[in-house]
C-alpha cells in the first residue's frame, strides 16, 4: 500500500472565522489550540471531520473549528453523533462535552455510546463546575463544594468520570490536562487511532468560577509528585526522583502507591493499556485522593472490540450482497409479498 498523500494542512486551516468568546484565561483556549495543532496530523480532509457538542462553555468549541460542526442541545451530543457516525462511517466524528453536559443531563447517552462502542472521539472538558450558568456545583465537584446553589456545601458525592466510563464498557479511556499541550496531543493521537469510542477526560481550569482546581497537577516543583504519567509497557513510577511507584498488593483488590526504595522492582506494576479485564484500569482510576495526589494521566485502557458502525454496516452489507434487482423492483416485490389477490 502506498503512503497516503499528505494534505499539508496546518493549525491555521482549522481555525474558523468566528471570534472566540471564552473568558480570558479559560483553559478552553489551550485545548482549542492543542486540538487545532493536532488536527493536521490526522491527514483527513477538513470536510470529513465533524465536531458535535452539547451545551455549556466547552460546547461552543465547534464554532471555532473550520470543519463541519453542530452545537446541539444539552447532553445529547453523543446521541446525535451516534446517528451521524452510524450512517456516515466515512467521517471522523468528535464530541466535545463538559462535566455537566456529559455526566449530568447527558449521562444516559454517554454510557450508551460507550457500551455500543460508537466510533466517536469524546472529549470531556472537566472543570468541576457549571460555568455557563454562572457557578453551580457539577457532578464532578467535591463533596461540600460551596457554590451559588450550595451556600453551605453540596451534599452529593461526585462521579469519577473514568470509573464511570470503564463501568460503561468503554474500550478506550484516557485523561490529560489542558495546560500540557504535548501530553494532550499525545492522548488525542491515541484516541484518533482507536476504533470505537475513545473517552478522553481533560482537566480544564475555569478561572472564573473554580480557579485553580487542578493547580497541584500544573505547578512546577509540585506536579511531578502528584502526577502519574502512564506509559504503555513501562513500570509505573513517579515523583520528582521516581520515588513513588504503583503496586498490586497480594490479597488486595486494587492498586496502591508505595515508596520505590522500599519496593522490589518486580513488584512494580508495568502499565498495560491492553489488559482485557477493566478491573485494572478501574483500579488506576481510583488512585487519586481528594487532594489530587496520585493522579494518573495518559491512556488507561485501549482494547479492541468491533465498533457499532462496523457491526451494523456488516449486517447491511450482508443483506445487500444478495440483491440483484433495482431498488424499484425490490420495492415492488416487497409491497406484493404475503397473501395477495387479484381482481380483474
Amino acid at each position, binding site marked *: 500500500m502506498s503512503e497516503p498523500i499528505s494534505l499539508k494542512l496546518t493549525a491555521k486551516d482549522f481555525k*474558523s472565522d*468566528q471570534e472566540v468568546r471564552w473568558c480570558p484565561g479559560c483553559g478552553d483556549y489551550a485545548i482549542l489550540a492543542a486540538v487545532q495543532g493536532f488536527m493536521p496530523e490526522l491527514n483527513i*480532509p*477538513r*470536510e*470529513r471531520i*465533524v465536531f*458535535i457538542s452539547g*451545551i455549556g462553555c466547552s460546547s461552543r468549541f*465547534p*464554532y471555532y*473549528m*473550520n*470543519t*463541519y*460542526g*453542530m*452545537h*446541539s*442541545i444539552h447532553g*445529547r451530543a453523543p*446521541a*446525535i*453523533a*451516534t*446517528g*451521524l*457516525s*452510524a*450512517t*456516515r462511517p*466515512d*467521517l471522523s466524528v468528535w464530541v466535545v462535552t463538559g462535566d455537566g453536559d456529559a455526566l449530568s443531563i447527558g449521562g*444516559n*447517552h454517554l454510557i*450508551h455510546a460507550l457500551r455500543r462502542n460508537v466510533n466517536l472521539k469524546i472529549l470531556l472538558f472537566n472543570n468541576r463546575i457549571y460555568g455557563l450558568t454562572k457557578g453551580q456545583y457539577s457532578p464532578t465537584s467535591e463533596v461540600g463544594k460551596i457554590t451559588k446553589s450550595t451556600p453551605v456545601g453540596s451534599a452529593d458525592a461526585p462521579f469519577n468520570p473514568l470509573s464511570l466510563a470503564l463501568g460503561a464498557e468503554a474500550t478506550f479511556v484516557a485523561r490529560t490536562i489542558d495546560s500540557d499541550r504535548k501530553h494532550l496531543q499525545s492522548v488525542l493521537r491515541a484516541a484518533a487511532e482507536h476504533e470505537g469510542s475513545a473517552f478522553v477526560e481533560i482537566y480544564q481550569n475555569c478561572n472564573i468560577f473554580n480557579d485553580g482546581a487542578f493547580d497541584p497537577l500544573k505547578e512546577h516543583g509540585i506536579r511531578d509528585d502528584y502526577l502519574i504519567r502512564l506509559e504503555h509497557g513501562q513500570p509505573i513510577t513517579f515523583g520528582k526522583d521516581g520515588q513513588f511507584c504503583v503496586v498490586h498488593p497480594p490479597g488486595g483488590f486494587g492498586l496502591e502507591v508505595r515508596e520505590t526504595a522500599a519496593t522490589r522492582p518486580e513488584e512494580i506494576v508495568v502499565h498495560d493499556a491492553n489488559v482485557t479485564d477493566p478491573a485494572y484500569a478501574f483500579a488506576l482510576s481510583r488512585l487519586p485522593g481528594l487532594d489530587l495526589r496520585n493522579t494518573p494521566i495518559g491512556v488507561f485502557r485501549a482494547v479492541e472490540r468491533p465498533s457499532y458502525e462496523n457491526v*451494523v454496516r456488516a*449486517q*447491511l452489507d*450482508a*443483506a*445487500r450482497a*444478495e*440483491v440483484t434487482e433495482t*431498488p*424499484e423492483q*425490490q*420495492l*415492488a416485490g*416487497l*409491497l*406484493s409479498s*404475503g*397473501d*395477495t*389477490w*387479484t*381482481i*380483474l
Partner: protein
Amino acid sequence: MSKQIRQLDRVVIRFAGDSGDGMQLTGDRFTSETAQLGNDISTLPNFPAEIRAPAGTLPGVSSFQVHFADYDILTPGDAPNVLVAMNPAALKANLADLPRGADIIVNTDEFTKRNLSKVGYQVNPLDDDTLAGYAVHPVALTSMTIGALADQDVSKKDAERAKNMFALGLLSWMYSRPYESTLRFLERKFARRPELVAANVAAFRAGWNFGETTEDFAVRYEVKPAKMPPGTYRNITGNAALSLGLVAAGVRSGLPVFLGAYPITPASDILHELSKHKKFGVLTMQAEDEIAAVGAALGASYGGALGITTTSGPGVALKSETISLAVALELPLLIVDVQRAGPSTGMPTKTEQADLNLALNGRHGEAPVAVIAPKSPADCFYAALEAARIALTYRTPVILLSDNYVANGSEPWLLPDVNSLPDLRVEFATAPNGEDGSTFLPYLRDPETLARPWAIPGTPGLEHRIGGLEKADKTGDISYDPANHDFMVRTRAARIETIPVPDVEVEDPDGDARVLVLGWGSTYGPIGAACRGLRQRGLSVAQAHLRHLAPMPANLGTVLRSYDRVVIPEMNLGQLAHVIRAKYLVDAIGYNQVRGLPFTAAELETMLEEVLKNV
C-alpha cells in the same frame, strides 16, 4: 346432510378469548381467507396491555373484530353479528356490544364453576335467561379438538392450544371461506415442527367438518365478492403500511433510511418491520431512550439520510426539545406519533386523537412544524410518503399523527405501481452559493421553498457550523440582533405556512347539504359510514377530511364558510375544533368521546341527524 345456503351482504364477527387463546391470530387468518375471496374488509383488534393477564379474567380478554361485505365498507362495524366466546370472561366482556338476535358460539368446556366465578357469574349464563334472544351455539370446542387430535403425535397441551384452529375451521365453514391460505400459513408458521402443522390442520378440518355435520348449524352463509377496482390487493394494517411507506420513501428519494426508536406501544411494530428491510439499506437503531432515538435520527439527517423516529405521545413529549433543534437547524426529520389514550401511560393499547395540540404546539419557542394524519390503515403508506416529501423538500421536521385504531386495524390495499409513487430525489449543496463565488451561506434560502441548502459533511468547501443558537440570516453566524431574530422567527413560520398542500375535498353527492362534517385522521371511516347512512335515508350532509393539519389547505376557510353548520367529531375534547374556531372564526360544533375506542357509525349518525334537524 345438505345445508341451506343464505346470501348476506355483510357480516361482523368478533373472536374473543383469553390473551393466550390466539384470538388475534385466528382473526388475522379469517381476515386473510376473506380477503382471498374478494370481500371488502375492515378489522379492529382489541387487546389488553398485559401480555398474559391472569387466565380467565375480564382484564385478560383479547378480541378481534372483522367486518366483511360485498360492497365497499369504511369501518370494522359497530356491533358484531357473531361472537365467538372462548370462555365466560370473553362472553361477559363482549355481550353488551351484541344486538339481540346475534349468533353466539361458546366453548362450553371453559364454562366451569371456577371460570364462571372468576368473572362473577353465580349461575351459568348458558343455563339461565342471560342469553335469551340470542342464537346460542354451545360447542365443546376444547374437548372436540383434543378428541380430533387423539391420533396425532402431540402433547395434550399442544392439542388443547389448537382449539383456536377448530374455531377458525368452524367459522370458515359457516361463511364459506377459502382456506388454502390458512393451510399454507400453518405450514410456514410451524415449519420446524411438522407435528404441529399436522395437529393444527387436523383441528381446522375438525372444526370445518363439525359445521358440516352438526345439526346445530342449519344454515351456511355466503358473502359475494365486493366490486372493487381491478388490480392486486393485500390486506394490511396501518403500522405495516406506514413501514412500507418509509421504505418506499427511501427508494424514491435514493437516500438511506435511518430509524431511531425506543420501544413503545402501539408504535413498536414499525421498528420491528423496518428492522427486517436491511437489503433496502434501512438502518434501525433501538436507542437508549426516546431522546436518543430522535437525536440519532437528527444526526443521520444531518449526514444526508432520511432520519425518522417512531413513538407514541409520551415519547413525543420527550423528543420535544430535539424537534425544536431540528426546527432551528432546518433539517429534514420525520416523527411518527402512533397516538394512544393518555395522559401519561393512560390506556396504551387503546386509541385516541389527543396529541393534536402536542403536534401543533408542543415545543418551546416559536417552533412550527408540518403535521399530517392518515385516514385509514392503507392510507398510512401514502401519508408516510407525503410526510417524507415535505420533510425533504422543505427541510423541516414533520409529525405524522397515526393512532392505535389505524395502526392495528386493517383493510384491503390496492397495490400501487411503484413507478407512479412520488419522486422524492433531493439535491445536496455541492458548491459555494455566495455572490463572491467562494463563500458558503448555509442560511441562504431557495426563494420558492424557503429551504436552506442541505450541505452534508464530506462536501469539500462547504464546511460550516450550525447549532441551536439563533443564526444570522444567510450566513448562519451566531446572532443576537433583535431585528434578525424577529425576521428568523417569522421566516420559520412562513416556511411552514407556505408549504403548498392539496385543497381539501368535499364529498356532498346531493350538492345541497347545509351541514359539513369535518374530521381528521382515523375518524374518516366512521364519519363516512354515518354520512352514507344519512344519505341513504334521504338526508343531505357534506363530509370533508383533513390530511394536512399544518399547514392547512388554502381552501379550507372558504369551504367552512359555505355551510350553515360545521360539526367536528374527534376522539379528544375538541382540539381541532379549537384550532378551526381560532383560525377561521367558524362556530364549529365539537362531538367528542375519549373511550379508547373508535366512534361507531351509528352514534355519529344519530348525532348528525340531531344537528340536521336544527339547522
